[in-house]
C-alpha cells in the first residue's frame, strides 16, 4: 500500500516537472517582461526622437561609464537575499563628503578621485555597519527599511554638511563654503576633476568617445564580483540569501554575513559615486545622492534582474536600455505632444513604474510557488481514482 502511494507521488512529481519544461518558452517571456517592454519603448521612441546613431552610441557609452559602477554595487546585497539596497545612497553621501574635502583641499584630477575614494571608505563602512544592523533588526522588511534609512541618514548628512562643515569641521575656500560662514554651497564645482578618468586612455572612433579607463575600472569590479562569488564569503552569502535558518544551522554567522554584504555594497556605491560625479563635473551637494539609488535600481531591474536574482549581464543590459529610454524619451515626448516636459515626466514615470512592476512580480511569484503543491495533490487524487 505504502509502496504504491510513494511511487505515484514520485510520478506526479516528475510529470509536474515535465509540464514546467513545456512552458519554458512562455516562462522565459514572462520572466523577461520588463526588458522586452523596454526594447519596445526604445524601438518606438528612437525613430521619433530623430537622434543620429553616433549621438546615441556616444551618449550611451558616456552614461554607461557614469552609472555602471553604481549599479554593480547592488549585486552583493541581492546575493545575500536582502533585496534591492535602497541604502546605497549612504555610500553616495560618503563619497560626496570625500569630494567636498578634496575640493576644499584643492586636490585635482585622478589623485583627487583616489583621495575622495579613500576618504569615503571609513565613512561608507560606518554607515554600512549602521544600515546592516538596522536591517538585521527589520528582517523581512529590508527594502522599506533601507529606503527609510536613506532618508534618515540624509538628514544626518545635511546636519553635517549644512551646519557642521565650516563651523566645526574646517572648510577653507569660499568657493565651497556658503557666504554665511558655515555650510556647503548648493553646488560644488568639480571642474578640475571633470571627466579626468573618462579622458584617460580615451579612444575616439568616428566621433564616438570611448572612456577606456573608466571601462577598465568597471571591468575590474566585475572581475572582483565574479571572483567574490567563488570565495567562502560569497558562498556563505548565497546560502544566507536562500535560506537563513539552514545557513545558521550549518554554522554560518548569518547576521554578520548580512552586515558585510551591506557594508561592501555601501563602499562600492561610494566609489561608484565618485566616478559618477567626475563625469558630471559638479556636485549638487544636497540632491546628487537623493535619486541615485532609485535610478540605479530601476536600471538594474530593466536589465531583467529581480529582487532575489541579478547578474552582471543584467547590469549592462539594464544600463543600456534604461539610459537609451532616458535619452530618447524627452525628445520623442516633445515631438509627439509638443511639450518638452511630457517626456521628462514620462521617463520618471517609467523608472518608478519599472520598480513597481518588478516588486509586484517578485511578491506574486513568491505566492504562486506556495500554491503549486495543491495542484499536485489534486492531480494525484485523480491519478488515484
Amino acid at each position, binding site marked *: 500500500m505504502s509502496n504504491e502511494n510513494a511511487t505515484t507521488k514520485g510520478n506526479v512529481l516528475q510529470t509536474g516537472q515535465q509540464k514546467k519544461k513545456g512552458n519554458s518558452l512562455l516562462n522565459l517571456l514572462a520572466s523577461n517582461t520588463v526588458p522586452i517592454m523596454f526594447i519596445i519603448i526604445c524601438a518606438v521612441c528612437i525613430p521619433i526622437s530623430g537622434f543620429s546613431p553616433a549621438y546615441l552610441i556616444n551618449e550611451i557609452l558616456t552614461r554607461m561609464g557614469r552609472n555602471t559602477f553604481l549599479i554593480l554595487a547592488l549585486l552583493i546585497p541581492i546575493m545575500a537575499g536582502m533585496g534591492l539596497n535602497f541604502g546605497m545612497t549612504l555610500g553616495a553621501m560618503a563619497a560626496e563628503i570625500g569630494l567636498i574635502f578634496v575640493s576644499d583641499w584643492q586636490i*585635482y584630477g585622478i589623485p583627487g578621485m583616489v583621495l575622495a575614494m579613500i576618504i569615503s571608505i571609513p565613512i561608507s563602512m560606518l554607515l554600512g555597519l549602521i544600515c546592516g544592523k538596522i536591517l538585521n533588526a527589520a528582517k523581512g522588511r529590508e527594502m522599506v527599511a533601507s529606503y527609510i534609512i536613506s532618508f534618515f541618514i540624509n538628514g544626518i548628512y545635511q546636519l553635517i554638511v549644512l551646519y557642521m562643515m565650516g563651523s566645526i569641521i574646517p572648510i577653507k575656500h569660499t568657493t565651497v563654503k556658503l557666504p554665511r560662514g558655515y555650510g556647503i554651497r548648493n553646488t560644488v564645482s568639480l571642474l578640475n576633476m571633470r571627466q579626468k578618468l573618462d579622458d584617460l586612455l580615451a579612444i575616439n572612433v568616428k566621433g564616438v568617445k570611448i572612456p577606456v579607463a573608466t571601462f577598465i575600472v568597471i571591468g575590474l569590479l566585475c572581475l572582483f564580483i565574479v571572483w567574490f562569488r567563488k570565495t567562502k564569503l560569497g558562498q556563505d552569502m548565497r546560502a544566507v540569501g536562500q535560506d537563513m535558518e539552514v545557513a545558521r544551522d550549518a554554522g554560518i*554567522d548569518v547576521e554578520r554575513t548580512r552586515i558585510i554584504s551591506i557594508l561592501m555594497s555601501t563602499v562600492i556605491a561610494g566609489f561608484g559615486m565618485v566616478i559618477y560625479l567626475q563625469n558630471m563635473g559638479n556636485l*549638487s551637494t544636497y540632491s546628487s545622492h537623493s*535619486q541615485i539609488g532609485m*535610478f540605479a535600481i530601476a536600471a538594474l531591474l530593466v536589465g531583467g534582474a529581480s529582487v532575489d536574482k541579478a547578474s552582471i549581464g543584467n547590469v549592462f543590459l539594464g544600463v543600456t536600455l534604461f539610459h537609451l529610454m532616458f535619452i530618447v524619451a524627452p525628445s520623442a515626448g516633445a515631438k509627439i505632444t509638443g511639450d518638452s516636459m511630457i517626456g*521628462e515626466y514620462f521617463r520618471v514615470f517609467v523608472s518608478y513604474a519599472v520598480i513597481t512592476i518588478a516588486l509586484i512580480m517578485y511578491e506574486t511569484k513568491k505566492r504562486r510557488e506556495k500554491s503549486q503543491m495543491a495542484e499536485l495533490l489534486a492531480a494525484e487524487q485523480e491519478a488515484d481514482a
Partner: protein
Amino acid sequence: MKNKITKRMLLFRCGTIALLLLIAGLMFIVGRGHTVYFDNKKVSYDGKSIDTPPYRIDVYVNDERVAKLSAGDRGMCSWMGQDFRMRMEITKEKGGKKQIANVALKIPYNMDGIVLNLPALLAGFPQDGYLTEFVPAPAEVTAEDEEIVTDEFGLEGLDDGMEE
C-alpha cells in the same frame, strides 16, 4: 575559530591601512592643484622695473595653448603638482619674430592661486619678483546668501518638493 584574527592577519591589515594612508598622502602631494595666473604686465621689484611688457605672449601648458596675452592681459590655467612647466612664445613687438622660452619652476605647496608675472620671469628676476599669491578680491563675497535647496529631484533638473 573561523573568524579569529591572527597576529599575521592583523599585521596584514595594518599594512593595508598604512598602504591606503600612504596612497592618500601621495595623492595629497601629487594631486595638489594650483591655479596659475599669467600676467603680461608692467612690474617693478627691488628697484628694477619693466615698463614695456612684450606685445604678445602665448602660453602653452602640456602642448596646449592656455593663454594668448597681449600687453596688460592676464590669463590662467590649472596645474596639478608643484613642478610647473610651460612654454612661452614671445612676440616682442607687433610683427616681430617669435621667441620660444621653456620654463620650469616650483610652486609653493600651500598657495592655491599663483600669479606669475611673465615679463619679470623672463627678465630673470628672483622668485619673489615674479611670483605672488593670488588673493581673491573680497568684493566677491557679497552678503546675498544663497538659498539652500535640499529637496531637488537630483538627476537632470527635475524638481520635486520633498515633504510639503
